């Protein structure tokens, strides 16, 4: 070591002095947890309060230590970090709580034999009473509701996507920001804000007037959901079509390609990933609607595979009726178990749709690479 002119200092150089050691946050965190537990023990311990008090102690401790050692600039930085991370945790709390509650309550229901493959047809309070009193298995399932939700949502998508996409194409490619285009944009915005129950009432009233009073089928519900879906599809597709560079349209025109072919073969393929994920998110948005389905498709306990006739169950209305009108009023537990199971299935459906949206976006995205 004699050959080196300036001896290398073991850990702290002149450039790193006046910094908190790397382990500082962990030390403060441990101290805050212990102090928090001690304070809470005085007033009566609970986990929620422990978390809040410890978080506050941690922030105060770390910031003041930093202010003492590192100066005010670093202390402000630490304070901002604490606030950002704290806000993130607070925002995350409800989400985790919802998922946790649904998982805990839903898994027993989901594990019932035949939960996904049987309907509630013929399941009466007698069976539920027996399940509670004698320990017999809980019977009955959500097959009819799952089938109904899938059919209604599929039909709503089949109605909404062509209407929404064509509207968006008109607005972006042909509207020229004229009076009609501006009127459409305005009414689409208004439609976005329509409460879902109003959409349901509209569809019900429309079919009562056109087909006959008391018309309640899956198709009516699909129309109600379309009213909610179309503005979302129009808005997202419009944004996606707008960001297709004009140069690509001009390139196609300059090759002697007609306008509608340019739109069909150049503009839409370029924007398809965004459009597809927008549509999937719109589906996820309406799949959990309860009120409009209740007033348009009614409620059923048996399997109805014809979307155009007869009342039809769906997952949200199934949950609603199972909680509000348990199959056995004396023993509501089996019903509530079924409701939680259905809620879990609904959440899984929405998650799968969101994942599908990402997958679709990736598959259709313009290819890069050399």
């Amino acid at each position: 070591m004699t050959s080196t002119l300036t001896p290398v200092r073991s850990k702290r150089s002149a450039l790193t002095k006046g910094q908190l050691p790397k382990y500082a946050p962990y030390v403060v965190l441990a101290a805050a947890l212990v102090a928090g537990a001690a304070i809470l023990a005085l007033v009566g311990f609970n986990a929620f309060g422990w978390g809040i008090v410890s978080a506050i102690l941690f922030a105060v401790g770390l910031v003041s230590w930093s202010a003492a050692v590192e100066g005010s600039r670093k202390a402000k930085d630490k304070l901002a970090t604490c606030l950002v991370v704290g806000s993130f945790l607070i925002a995350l709390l409800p989400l985790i709580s919802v998922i946790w509650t649904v998982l805990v309550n839903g898994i027993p229901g989901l594990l019932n034999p035949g939960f996904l493959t049987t309907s509630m047809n013929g399941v009466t309070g007698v069976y539920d009473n027996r399940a509670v009193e004698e320990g017999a298995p809980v019977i009955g399932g959500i097959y009819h509701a799952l089938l109904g939700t899938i059919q209604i949502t599929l039909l709503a998508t089949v109605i909404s996507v062509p209407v929404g996409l064509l509207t968006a194409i008109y607005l972006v490619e042909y509207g020229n920001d004229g009076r009609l285009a501006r009127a459409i944009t305005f009414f689409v915005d208004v439609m976005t804000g329509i409460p879902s129950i109003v959409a349901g009432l509209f569809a019900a009233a429309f079919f009562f007037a056109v087909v006959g009073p008391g018309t309640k089928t899956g198709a009516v519900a699909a129309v109600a959901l379309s009213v909610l879906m179309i503005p979302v599809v129009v808005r997202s597709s419009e944004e996606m079509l707008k960001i297709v560079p004009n140069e690509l349209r001009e390139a196609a025109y300059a090759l002697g390609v007609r306008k509608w072919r340019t739109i069909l073969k150049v503009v839409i393929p370029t924007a398809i990933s965004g459009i597809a994920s927008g549509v999937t998110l719109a589906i996820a948005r309406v799949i959990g609607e309860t009120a409009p389905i209740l007033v348009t498709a009614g409620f059923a306990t048996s399997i109805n595979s014809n979307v155009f006739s007869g009342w039809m169950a769906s997952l949200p209305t199934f949950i609603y009726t199972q909680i509000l009108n348990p199959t056995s009023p004396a023993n509501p537990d089996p019903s509530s178990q079924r409701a939680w199971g259905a809620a879990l299935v609904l959440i899984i459906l929405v998650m799968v749709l969101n994942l599908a949206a990402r997958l679709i976006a990736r598959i259709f995205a313009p290819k890069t690479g050399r």
Partner: protein
Amino acid sequence: MSKRIDVKDLNVYYGDFLAVEDVTINIEAKSVTAFIGPSGCGKSTFLRTLNRMHEVLPGARVEGEVLLDGDNLYGPGVDPVTVRSQIGMVFQRPNPFPTMSIRDNVLAGVKLNNKKISKGEADVLVERSLKGANLWNEVKDRLEKPGSGLSGGQQQRLCIARAIAVEPQVILMDEPCSALDPISTLAIEDLINELKDQYTVVIVTHNMQQAARVSDRTAFFNIAGTGKPGKLIEVGDTQTIFSNPVQKATEDYVSGRFG
């Protein structure tokens, strides 16, 4: 396979605004004509009227005649799509279709119009067009890769290949080298020299050396001031325009004493 263009008394408007005033010019077949002039003088606007791309913009319109071998492009009943399939265009920024492979980009003019073409014919057309654009040797092993993965200069040559694949009579180029480095620019200029054996080429450029290098005839456009229409000041053999122009404004511009 090339036609001449004769423009008579052409006024170009954006809405009520007169952008280019009273242009009369003859563009010879199988030659390169360069448009030069300061920014905003209407060179590009005028170029876009030659294949009816101008009217794509809302409110844009044209008065006057543009004759392609005697047929008026703006005559009644003329379909702009027919015009554009005869007069191709290359833009300032390379714009290959991002969803298509290199091969599909070259075939875009055929495929987007849903014309039937056998695989053998398509292969021949792709090879001929890419060779015509001096790009074949660089991309022949990766024709199925996306066109957006090429370098800027290669992308611009891909766009030229795409334009010549539809076998137009005339090729318009709107500052094709302004986004490219000197080496890619040289490749494109060499290409222009080869293209004029078969096509009528019109090129807009800000680069006067480029105009002097590649063109047979040069047209100088100028503008009197902001908000005034652009005008064609002088057109003639490139040699004459750069060495012995008739108009004072032209001489000032080409010698760098402009403004």
